[in-house]
């Protein structure tokens, strides 16, 4: 199995609390690896360390064989890691397509291009539309971002991650706050991405996780207590005890 992302001995504490406690994890290429765990287990802290907004106290993060533990956030995105946000984080003053076009533009080495109007660059538009089609938002492209529903905002988050052409997508609770039909739609979108993208998914929605994941890791109090296929996790005694709440 070809590993895209390797995390070893990752540790991060806030005061006396170990938010991340000696986490070891391998994410294989073109797999959907889900991380589940109760509230406060340190899932978002983990994502923040992987995307570079938080610096770990100890441990190593390796992406495509390169040590990125100390690489700043914006450079990690350039290397091919993108993240979505648990709390929707978009450019609400811009239109839907402008948001996604900015993500496409981020593929360029730099954007110190001062002359041509961005909206006239067909490559940015076309690629943005492609990403929007994949999440089913093409018909909303010209709308004001602020005018979209919460569910559509969650889909935009995925479109932005897609548009960067990242090889690893860190998705932080894409289902957060979605109703049943919206959740179904999101599962469908992620199902479509699975075969072509490597995804590290953090999610509370167990139906979604067990439907989508190739591998699941269970994070409790900053520690990974089990990793395995959905079937293995379902039957793992320690997991049932600690997390799924069964005797």
């Amino acid at each position, binding site marked *: 199995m070809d590993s895209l992302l390797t995390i070893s001995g990752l540790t991060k504490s806030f005061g006396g609390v170990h938010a991340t406690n000696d986490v070891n994890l391998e994410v294989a290429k073109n797999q959907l690896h889900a991380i589940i765990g109760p509230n406060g287990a340190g899932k978002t802290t983990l994502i923040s360390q992987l*995307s570079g*907004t938080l610096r770990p106290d100890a441990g190593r993060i390796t992406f495509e064989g390169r040590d990125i533990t100390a690489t700043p*956030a*914006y*450079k*990690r*995105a*350039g290397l091919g890691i*993108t*993240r979505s*946000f648990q709390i929707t*984080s*978009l*450019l*609400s*003053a*811009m239109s839907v397509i*402008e948001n996604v*076009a*900015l*993500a496409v*533009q*981020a593929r*360029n080495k730099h*954007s*110190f*291009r*001062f*002359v*041509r*109007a*961005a*909206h006239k*660059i067909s490559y*940015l538009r076309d690629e943005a539309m492609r990403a929007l089609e994949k999440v089913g938002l093409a018909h909303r492209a010209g709308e004001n971002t*602020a005018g979209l529903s919460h569910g559509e905002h969650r889909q935009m988050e995925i479109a*932005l991650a897609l548009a*960067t052409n990242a090889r690893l997508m860190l998705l932080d609770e894409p289902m957060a706050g979605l109703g049943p039909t919206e959740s179904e739609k999101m599962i469908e979108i992620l199902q479509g991405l699975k075969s072509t993208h490597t995804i590290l998914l953090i999610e509370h929605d167990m139906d979604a996780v067990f439907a989508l994941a190739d591998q699941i890791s269970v994070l409790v109090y900053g520690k990974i207590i089990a990793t395995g296929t959905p079937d293995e996790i379902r039957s793992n005694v320690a997991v049932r005890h600690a997390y799924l709440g069964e005797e």
Partner: protein
Amino acid sequence: MDRKQMITLAVMAALLILPPLFIWTGYAFYLDLATRLVILAIAAVSLNLLLGYGGMASFGHAAFIGIGAYAVGIPAYHNTYGEFELVASYNGFFQIFLAVAITALFALITGIICLRTKGVYFIMITMAFAQMVFYLFISLEVYGGDDGLVIDTRSEFPLLNLDNPLHLYFFSFISLAAAMLIVRTIARSQFGMVLKGAMGNEERMIALGYNTYAYKLTAYVISGAMCGYAGALLGNFTTFISPEMMGWTRSGELMFMVILGGAGSTIGPVIGSGLFVLVEELLSSFTIYWHLPFGLMLILVVLLFRGGLLGLISGNSKSGGH
């Protein structure tokens, strides 16, 4: 063509046609007023690149005006009175080059530090740097200290005589049009989109892979250099250059102009400067306390009309925020 573009063209057409009429009908004073307006508008346009498209509320832009003006005054001074042969010159190209280069460098050095902060801290630190320059020039006795410096020869250009008020006016007007075009082009470019993105949600832009700091710093340098250019023009206009040109109130006035007229638009800062110059002229003829009604007016515009006066007249204003 939408309404904003029509307003832009109308304002620029008025600025092109009215001032010559003033002088031909014997109201030379109003040409002076228009020249001041246009030069301050260039400074406001430069600030708008930061404030309107980058969300950076620089409270130190007066320093760029002052440095730009002294870049005209000091070479002229030495050309008249000798010493410091290296910079002594009346040549306009040289003086303007000096103004732009030094303000760009000053913007780069101070920007590297200022842009590590945000919000109120950014406002305070930009103001602190401007005050530093202000007191530096006050302490420079050679150039008159706080009494300032009178230049007896304006910048010299081929085919152009800045002593002729109409020449000076049109030179400033064309400069303003160019500045507006530059800022408009930048704002719509890929660079401009990144800048606007960083204003709206910096965390998201970093997550997408943008080193927002570098983009903001670049905008800061462009803005500073453009404002320095405006300062060189202002020095030529007043022919009297003193630290007072870069007092902190001047920085505040530039912010007024941008916000009052409409930040983040091409013509907004020009409308703001126009209103500022006119209101200053009108109110100050009634009372020396003209800042008070002016301040009240500004508060009303900010509270009632998002997008400033341009928002109001172009019908794009939403009252209140969300």
